[in-house]
């Protein structure tokens, strides 16, 4: 947007060619794009919250109003407790339990593997790292059939184990991102620790983990969002109501009442989104920096 010094010209629109003038035009154009796109991006969210606060007769009113005439807060408890067989409280606890377990499991297993790939020398390392990259390209949803059989052989169907145990065995995408981050930690730090007689476990615990907080926070947030929103796995492995997770509960609710009770459904959907939203708001600084610094250079 800056003009090169030698390109000074004198004509009637000279102000537009000056550095300041150009910059002002640039800022105006940028905002003219930034703001409307931002409004469109939050629109689904606004529609959800506004429907959640309307009485039923206003939900189908035309033209649609974004701001309800009266705020019906009662929709939230009504939706949550309204229908006996979809127990949102239990579903939420189940979701939370699985999510927390998977965050810890992923962080532990992926940190170990990422450290190994970033800092340890071993024969066969490049081969295994190529496998890490290759498994990033595997569409997990396509693996359901054999995994279903596997877990049914283990006797794990209708328990949380198929959703919780794999998290402790690493995930290629996280290993890759974390390894990229670990690669940026200066070698000198490691050498100094080695001279002090530190083993790899200590180097990992006392140097790598403290220095990688943004990256680890990023992965934790990623894991939270992914697991909280996970729909495919629970739908597949869980049957009885008291082990269900939140997304499945929402769909059951939709199946039973969705076409008639839109306001209540949006109320429970809003509640389901709030935890993710809070995590995002508090973590977004880490989050964005984490993705950026982990980088994507191969």
């Amino acid at each position, binding site marked *: 947007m800056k003009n090169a010094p030698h390109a000074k010209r004198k004509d009637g629109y000279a102000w537009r060619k000056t550095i300041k003038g150009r910059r002002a035009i640039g800022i105006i154009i940028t905002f003219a794009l930034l703001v409307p796109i931002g409004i469109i991006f939050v629109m689904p969210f606004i529609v959800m919250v506004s429907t959640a606060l309307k009485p039923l007769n206003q939900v189908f009113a035309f033209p649609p109003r974004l701001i309800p005439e009266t705020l019906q807060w009662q929709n939230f408890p009504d939706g949550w407790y309204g229908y006996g067989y979809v127990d949102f409280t239990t579903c939420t606890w189940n979701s939370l339990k699985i999510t927390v377990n998977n965050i810890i499991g992923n962080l532990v297993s992926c940190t170990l593997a990422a450290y190994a790939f970033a800092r340890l020398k*071993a024969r066969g390392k490049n081969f295994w790292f190529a496998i890490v990259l290759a498994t990033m390209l595997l569409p997990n949803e396509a693996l*359901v059939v054999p995994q279903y059989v596997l877990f049914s052989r283990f006797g794990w169907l209708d328990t949380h184990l198929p959703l919780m145990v794999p998290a402790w065995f690493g995930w290629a995408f996280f290993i890759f991102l974390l390894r990229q981050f670990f690669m940026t930690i200066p070698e000198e730090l490691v050498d100094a620790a080695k001279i002090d007689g530190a083993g*790899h476990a200590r180097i990992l615990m006392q140097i790598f983990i403290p220095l990688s907080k943004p990256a680890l926070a990023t992965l934790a947030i990623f894991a939270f969002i992914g697991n909280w929103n996970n*729909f495919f796995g629970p739908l597949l492995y869980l049957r009885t109501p008291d082990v269900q997770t939140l997304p499945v509960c929402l769909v059951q609710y939709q199946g039973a009442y969705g076409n008639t009770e839109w306001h209540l459904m949006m109320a429970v959907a809003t509640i*389901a989104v709030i935890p993710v939203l809070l995590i995002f708001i508090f973590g977004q600084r880490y989050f*964005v920096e984490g993705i*950026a610094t982990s980088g994507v250079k*191969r």
Partner: protein
Amino acid sequence: MLRRYLRPISPSARREERIFYLFILPWLVGLVVFNAGPVLGMLGLSFTDWRISLDDLQFIGLDNYATLVADPIFWTSVGNTLYIVVGRVVFGTAFALFLAILLNQKVPGIPFFRAVYYLPTVTAGVAVALVWIWIFNPRLGILNYSLKQIGITGPPWIYSSQWVKPSLILMSMFAVGPNMIILLAGLQGVPKELYESAEIDGAGNWAKFRNVTLPMLSPVLFFVIIISVVSSFQNFTEIRVMTEGGPGESSNVLIWYLWENAFIFLQLGVAAAVAWIMFVILMALTGLQFRLGRRWVFYEV
């Protein structure tokens, strides 16, 4: 490679190697049990008449694959999948790049907009898919209402076989957050000196974009495209919540076709074959991209 393994190494190197394998052990076990095992098991099972129980399996050769080839719905779902994948990757990547460029401008308030643009990605899932059913409602939804305000009669979106796929692609545009951030990081990694020297050569904005930004960004762009292709195959949630493959078969994609065969029709052998075909298509697409990538991806020397 084998010779390298047989060559003697020092005890300390051996110790380090042992620690390496110890550290990657959880991942290795996971790889074998949850990925490699299932992938190979699935290949085997796709040649059997497997229905519900694994006992008494009959080897039926390529019959499952023949069944698929003969099933017009299978071909419809292959077509739908490619339609959606191409749409999501082309428009999604272009849009993510556009947003990244916008967020790379030096104006106040960028962190705020960055968070806002990322928001729909975070809240993707069943809850928001439910909202989209409502948004897409042809008569009462906010989308067609907004279009009407500017004098356009909106289409019936997910309720018509013609519009359902564009609707799903449009909806996916809201979840380009990760790609946007990765591209933004890429943009910020382009050395300033390159722009300065381009300016000295008299390059305008477009020339700078074309000759500096794009080549420098191409490895990142390539990464984004490869990852987007894989994730575009995995759109089960929207399909299950919003369309169930309909209207008719117009949004029946491979992952939905697989699900139906496995868990509704209980044709597990057929489903295993579908999964394998999905892998092959995905591998072919990725291979093709690496080939094409050689022509346009520019790696710094």
